[in-house]
């Protein structure tokens, strides 16, 4: 192969790679750190932890968020927990086991060295968060409590009721706030990044839009960190927040950063089902519920039909009339199989005609046995807020009747390609957290997103960034450089072009259509035929966007429709790439399930001979086919095996 990416993985035994690498990295001496400026885009777990940690070291940080406050990033909505290989439970956990579970959970499509480092620093994250005053759940003796999560047979998940993401984010936000007060971080709220600026091939800044005034502004620095989250909203309906988008990462992609494994998306098995066409988003019910909730559908289609018509209630069905399909098919992991397996099996049940709820697109998650065993008060203490949320949205009481759940788009494993140092293919441009592709392979395990976001921000980038900065030196580029004026002009022209369309379709109408195409053809299961159809449909939508979109108002004021329109265009281009990626990967692995490649009993059939690589896509220009560049995955420590949870 002519084009192969070098991930710069350090030499040496797996367990020593990170320590050795850290020692080999160049340092910037404390007095010189103040001569360097760093831009951090995004203030979620990855962004806030990176901005705070870099400012503590002495760098001058500028941090950007489109929210009104850095505390509102969507990390805040993570419910269940954060993994760490503390082995506080004495149940056989270790750094190696967390590493192995994550590699296996990702269906052997992640990079060994990165995942090992993630498991290694996981223990420091818990220490750091506790020191910040994060109120994790505790036992009566005062020590930290744990629970188990999908894809693992040990209890290594730390949690704060069903609001772990909130508490961790508020911890990072408090560290960030301290640095803002100290003058080491300048915070820009309601400011959206719209492009990356390269000078002599290096990332030297960004162009932003002030969402209140519409002003287009430039910001220069020695390096740019994108901590801008995932792209699940390409599906329109997802568990992402309404404003989550791919714009920052996508515009960086168009400036030369390769986009890796775009088709690896995670469909989470336990979300509240869609109730109507007006639906704006889907709500997750934490994976932790699967510790006590048993998932089932009626054994017969007839019972399912009666339930759908409202003539029977799930409570009418006796034990032997229920099919606990995960426990039946996967006896050793049961309801705690990884997310991709759980989702796909729920889909199979509904495809068979055994789905419940008025639409037939739901399965039950039942807590009656757990309530009988532990009592309502114990269950309420564990999951009270989730049960309340469910009742608020559906009007049903899950203490009395089983929850109805269905899979929904939740997380994107794909993202900007980064090397071991978290640098993209553009020198000086880094990607952290969900915005990069690096640690979860083809499927992410529960409670690992929080771990990765904080690992990247607190414990990886503070080391690896210094090496780059020491190499380029402190000489500054200012926003007077023609490269900034050029990008500003391109951004302004793009905005003017959108404002001038003056058609009849709203942004949401086109976005909904894109979402349906992606869900039907590039969702839980995919075929070459369907993907080819999606390719044509997306092309049609792209044409519709430029001929018939309607955006009112002006670009020199607060204009939420314009914000959404710009994000939609980037989603349309990304959607097209996801389809190409899914078409190229002729195997099934993790969240990517191609119907042509499955075992007789319907499990994913991976092809390690031909596809043990990362697909990184290089932008070649508008309306040109992007080029596939590969990073071959070397497995030196784990044996590639068929992922079995039976």
């Amino acid at each position: 192969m002519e084009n192969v990416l070098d991930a710069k993985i350090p030499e040496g035994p797996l367990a020593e790679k990170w320590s050795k690498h850290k020692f080999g990295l160049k340092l910037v001496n404390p007095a010189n750190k103040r001569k360097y400026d760093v831009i951090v885009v995004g203030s979620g777990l990855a962004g806030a932890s990176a901005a705070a940690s870099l400012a503590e070291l002495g760098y001058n940080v500028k941090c950007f968020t489109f929210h009104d406050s850095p505390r509102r990033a969507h990390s805040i909505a993570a419910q269940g927990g954060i993994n760490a290989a503390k082995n506080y439970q004495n149940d056989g956990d270790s750094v190696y086991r967390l590493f192995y579970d994550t590699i296996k959970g990702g269906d052997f499509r992640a990079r060994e060295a990165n995942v090992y480092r993630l498991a290694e620093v996981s223990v420091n994250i818990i220490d750091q968060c506790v020191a910040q005053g994060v109120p994790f759940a505790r036992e009566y003796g005062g020590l930290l409590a744990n629970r188990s999560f999908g894809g693992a047979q040990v209890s290594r998940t730390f949690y704060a009721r069903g609001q772990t993401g909130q508490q961790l984010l508020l911890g990072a936000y408090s560290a960030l706030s301290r640095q803002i007060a100290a003058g080491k971080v300048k915070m820009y709220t309601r400011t959206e990044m719209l492009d990356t600026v390269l000078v002599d091939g290096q990332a030297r800044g960004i162009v932003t839009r002030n969402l209140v005034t519409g002003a287009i502004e430039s910001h220069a620095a020695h390096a740019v960190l994108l901590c801008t989250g995932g792209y699940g909203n390409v599906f329109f309906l997802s568990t992402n927040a309404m404003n989550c988008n791919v714009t920052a990462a996508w515009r960086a992609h168009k400036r030369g950063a390769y986009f890796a494994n775009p088709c690896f998306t995670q469909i989470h098995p336990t979300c509240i089902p869609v109730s109507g066409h007006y639906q704006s988003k889907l709500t997750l019910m934490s994976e932790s519920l699967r510790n006590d909730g048993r998932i089932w559908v009626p054994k017969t289609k007839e019972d399912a039909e009666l339930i759908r018509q409202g003539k029977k209630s799930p409570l009418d069905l006796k034990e032997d009339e229920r099919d606990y399909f995960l426990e039946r098919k996967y006896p050793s992991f049961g309801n705690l199989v990884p997310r991709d397996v759980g989702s796909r099996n729920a889909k199979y049940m509904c495809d068979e005609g055994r789905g419940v709820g008025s639409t037939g697109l739901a399965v039950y998650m039942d807590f009656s046995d757990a309530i009988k065993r532990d009592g309502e008060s114990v269950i309420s203490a564990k999951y009270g807020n989730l049960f309340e949320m469910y009742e608020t949205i559906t009007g049903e009481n899950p203490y009395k009747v089983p929850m109805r759940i269905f899979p929904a788009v939740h997380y994107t494993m794909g993202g900007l390609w980064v090397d071991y140092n978290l640098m993209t293919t553009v020198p000086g441009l880094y990607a952290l957290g969900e915005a990069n592709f690096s640690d979860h392979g083809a499927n992410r395990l529960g409670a690992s997103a929080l771990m990765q976001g904080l690992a990247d921000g607190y414990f990886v980038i503070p080391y690896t960034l210094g090496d780059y900065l020491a190499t380029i030196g402190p000489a500054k580029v200012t926003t007077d450089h023609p490269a900034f004026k050029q990008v500003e002009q391109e951004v302004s022209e793009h905005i003017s072009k959108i404002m001038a369309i003056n058609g009849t379709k709203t942004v949401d109408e086109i976005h909904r259509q894109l979402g349906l195409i992606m869900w039907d053809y590039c969702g839980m299961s995919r075929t070459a035929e369907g993907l080819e159809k999606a390719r044509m449909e997306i092309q049609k939508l792209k044409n519709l966007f430029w001929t018939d979109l309607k955006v009112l108002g002006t670009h020199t004021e607060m204009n939420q429709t314009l914000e959404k329109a710009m994000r939609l265009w980037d989603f349309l281009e990304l959607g097209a790439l996801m389809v190409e990626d899914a078409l190229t990967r002729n195997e099934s692995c993790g969240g990517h399930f191609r119907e042509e490649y499955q075992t007789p009993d319907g499990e994913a059939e991976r092809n390690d001979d031909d596809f043990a690589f990362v697909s990184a896509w290089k932008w070649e220009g508008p309306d040109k086919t992007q080029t596939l560049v590969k990073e071959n995955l070397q497995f030196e420590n784990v044996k590639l095996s068929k992922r079995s949870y039976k």
Partner: protein
Amino acid sequence: MKLTLKIWRQKSTDTEGRLVDYVVDKISEDMSFLEMLDVLNEDLIKKGEDPVTFDHDCREGICGTCSLYINGRPHGPTRITTCQLHMRTFKDGETITIEPWRAKAFPVVKDLMVNRSSFDRIIQAGGYVSVNTGSARDANETPIGKEIADEAFNSATCIACGACVAACKNASAMLFVGAKISQLAMLPQGQPERKRRAEAMVAQMDAEGFGACSNTMACVAECPKSISMANIVSLNREYIGAKLTSNQV
């Protein structure tokens, strides 16, 4: 359902605003309140009228972004965030008045969107534990009783939506400030900076133009995260204690 909406429209911070009437039809009772506003905005765009600007994001009750004052109450008739409010709470034919938060320290940005950066500045004044990344000791070396950890968690669930301020006739932020001060005062990690924190956060709260506690407990009645009055009691105790025995010289 068919509803009449009276919505506050205001072009920008410096312009005058007014209530404008709209009618929405075919509203399902399973819709969330914000989805109902989405429907209105789609209609308005189709008609060529400027859609209503409002803040929202996660739509699952945790980011604290949504901030609508509905029929004279923050987040509407029930004690949940606006995004979790569903139309089944309202009756067909009803008139619903929707305004932004009303407080001097939360100026209107546009229509129903306000600027709550004053909350961020209060946290920046001292709502943290000063611990640099990397200097923490093993998490289990600091045992914290379950009861204390749970209470600290209850205070820490504040989402900084600002409903407490909007509910108070004095636009006081004491519940918000009290929640953070109590959380950290309860935990061993918060002890070294305990007095400094209380003094600095209260000083910033005053500087931002929030009023004094009205003692009506309207904030507690409206808080979507059930932050309790005990947090204000604790704030008063922490502040007075800090003032009397201040470490500041």
